[in-house]
């Protein structure tokens, strides 16, 4: 064989990797082939039941399988005709059990094969139904029952077979792990609405982030959140496998313009969107509708409330509560503060003066009263001395003196009293006057 053929052969040869091909295509509509379930003819020990009764019980089993395994989920319960057509000619299933049933299932391309066998136990009829998975060669489940007659046996079959066939559903379920990424981390997780096949709940539980069991096949998933663009797409769920859905949702954007005013005049300030500086006012741009928008410098940054209310465009004139002072304001402030300081000092001075005055007044008042009282007292003493002087004068005038000395002494007394009177009048008057002066002045 020449080199060309060798190269061609080696390149052409293709080996199959595994018995079950693993093909997972997300977001493509790829329904699998129907899952075929074959209910083979019921067998019975000799003369236990008639052929018609066996066929009837088989039909009952098939009808229960149809009820348990919905066609919408791509299950096909093979008909008697199809099974007959596909069974190898001459093949009898009466003596077939266990692995023979599995092989029969493979021979007729059935994914699952079930068969019932009727027997007799004492006075009762018994039935055992087994269900096998052909691909895995395994017994999925079985049930046994007994009844006094065939009608009761039918009832038993109807009651118990749905549980058996439901194992197919349970084993064939796949999972979807919903992990949408809210890229901008705005909005609340609780606002995320997830729908699977149009439904937002399953068995009363609201769909949320996490893993959910679904039947194999194509399912439609929808993510909805007021802050993000909705997404709707299909996933292919495969039996026994988990599909992870971790789409990143895009934030819904809106056209936004912002002007900022402070004290009635426009004030240019930086604008922050989700903490990142996006520009300065007057600001125009597209922002996520749930973004946190702030305006202002440094410690004066404040939140601007956005209410989109379904609008695509929002224009806001925001009045700043506080703003970082400008250079002019700072200068004006400094002048004002100097003036204020001067005023303050003057006020303090005045206060100090007033306090001092108050203090002086507090002292002066009693002093002045004391002085006036003393003055009055002095005047009183002066009045007394005046009376003494008058008495002494009267005595001078009326007395006869024996000598010049007594005459002079008496005159001295008069003079002395007058002098004392004058002194005390003077002191009293002075004190009263001084006290009045002190009272009124201080």
């Amino acid at each position, binding site marked *: 064989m020449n080199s060309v053929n060798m190269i061609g052969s080696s390149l052409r040869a293709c080996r199959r990797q595994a018995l079950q091909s693993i093909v997972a295509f997300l977001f493509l509509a790829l329904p699998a*082939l129907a899952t075929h379930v074959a209910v083979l003819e019921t067998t019975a020990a000799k003369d236990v039941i008639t052929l018609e009764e066996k066929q009837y019980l088989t039909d009952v089993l098939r009808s229960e399988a149809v009820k348990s395994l919905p066609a919408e989920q791509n299950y096909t319960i093979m008909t008697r005709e199809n099974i007959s057509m596909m*069974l190898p000619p001459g093949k009898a299933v009466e003596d077939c059990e266990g692995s023979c049933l599995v092989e029969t299932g493979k*021979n007729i391309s059935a994914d699952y094969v079930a068969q019932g066998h009727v027997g007799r136990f004492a006075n009762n009829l018994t039935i055992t139904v087994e269900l096998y998975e052909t691909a895995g060669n395994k017994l999925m489940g079985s049930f046994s029952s007994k009844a006094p007659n065939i009608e009761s046996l039918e009832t038993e079959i109807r009651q118990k077979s749905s549980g058996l066939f439901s194992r197919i559903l349970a084993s064939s379920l796949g999972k979807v792990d919903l992990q949408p990424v809210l890229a901008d981390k705005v909005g609340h997780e609780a606002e995320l609405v997830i729908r699977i096949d149009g439904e937002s709940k399953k068995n009363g539980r609201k769909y949320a982030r996490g893993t959910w069991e679904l039947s194999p096949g194509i399912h439609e998933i929808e993510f909805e959140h007021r802050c993000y663009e909705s997404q709707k797409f299909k996933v292919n769920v495969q039996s026994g496998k988990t599909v992870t859905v971790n789409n990143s949702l895009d934030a819904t954007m809106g056209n936004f313009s912002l002007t900022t005013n402070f004290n009635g005049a426009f004030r240019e300030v930086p604008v922050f969107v989700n903490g990142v500086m996006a520009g300065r006012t007057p600001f125009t741009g597209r922002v996520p509708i749930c973004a946190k928008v702030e305006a202002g410098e440094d410690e004066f940054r404040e939140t601007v409330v956005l209410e989109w209310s379904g609008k695509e465009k929002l224009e806001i004139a925001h009045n700043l509560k506080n703003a970082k002072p400008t250079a002019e304001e700072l200068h004006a402030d400094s002048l004002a503060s100097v003036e204020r300081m001067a005023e303050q000092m003057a006020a303090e001075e005045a206060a100090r003066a007033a306090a001092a005055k108050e203090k002086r007044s507090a002292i002066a008042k009693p002093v002045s009263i004391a002085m006036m009282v003393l003055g009055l007292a002095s005047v009183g003493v002066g009045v007394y001395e005046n009376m003494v002087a008058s008495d002494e004068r009267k005595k001078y005038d009326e007395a006869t003196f024996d000598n010049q000395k007594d005459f002079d002494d008496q005159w001295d007394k008069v003079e002395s009293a007058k002098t004392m009177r004058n002194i005390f009048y003077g002191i009293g008057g002075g004190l009263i006057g001084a006290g009045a002066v002190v009272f009124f002045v201080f």
Partner: protein
Amino acid sequence: MNFTNMKNVIAWSRKATKQSLVVLFFVVLLFSSASFAAEAATQSQKIPLPAAIRDSLPWFAVFELQNDNAPFTRNHLNALAQKSERVVLVYYATWCVPCREGLKQISANLDALAAAKTSVVLVNVGEREKDMLTKYLAKFSLEKLPAVVDPFGRFTEGFGLIKEGENIDLPRTVVVDKKMHPSFMIGAEGADYIQILKGEK
């Protein structure tokens, strides 16, 4: 010519020979690849039939791809064989790149095959995604040909092409005559593939 010169000449000759061989190797490789890329090998690869189907085909039952409730059994194949001179079972899988050559040839010669009364049945090996398979065949304009799926290996293990649990080599084509006797099996398809399928070779 002194000894040193002779040594230099020999060294130069060796080097030139090596370089020439390298160039020649790459030229051969280039032409080989070009040959491979450009067209199929001249001869299709005929392979001996496995013992299980040397005389006849065993019973089988699978479902059709287009209608997965419609069985396709040996009886159906027999009915098809009765109407034809021969039936060819073309085994393929979407992951098998060399299989595409054979499918392209069949697609390009559908009328010629029909005129030669050769019926073609496409047998998918082990895949279950119905839509994917349908779209795959539509790419080759083969969606109207009978196609079956064989999830349980009736056409492979059942025919003795592989033992239980083994992997199958693809492509494979089994030619069955009018009386349901397998005639021969083809591996890699060559330029004469269609001639063989038409019974001209």
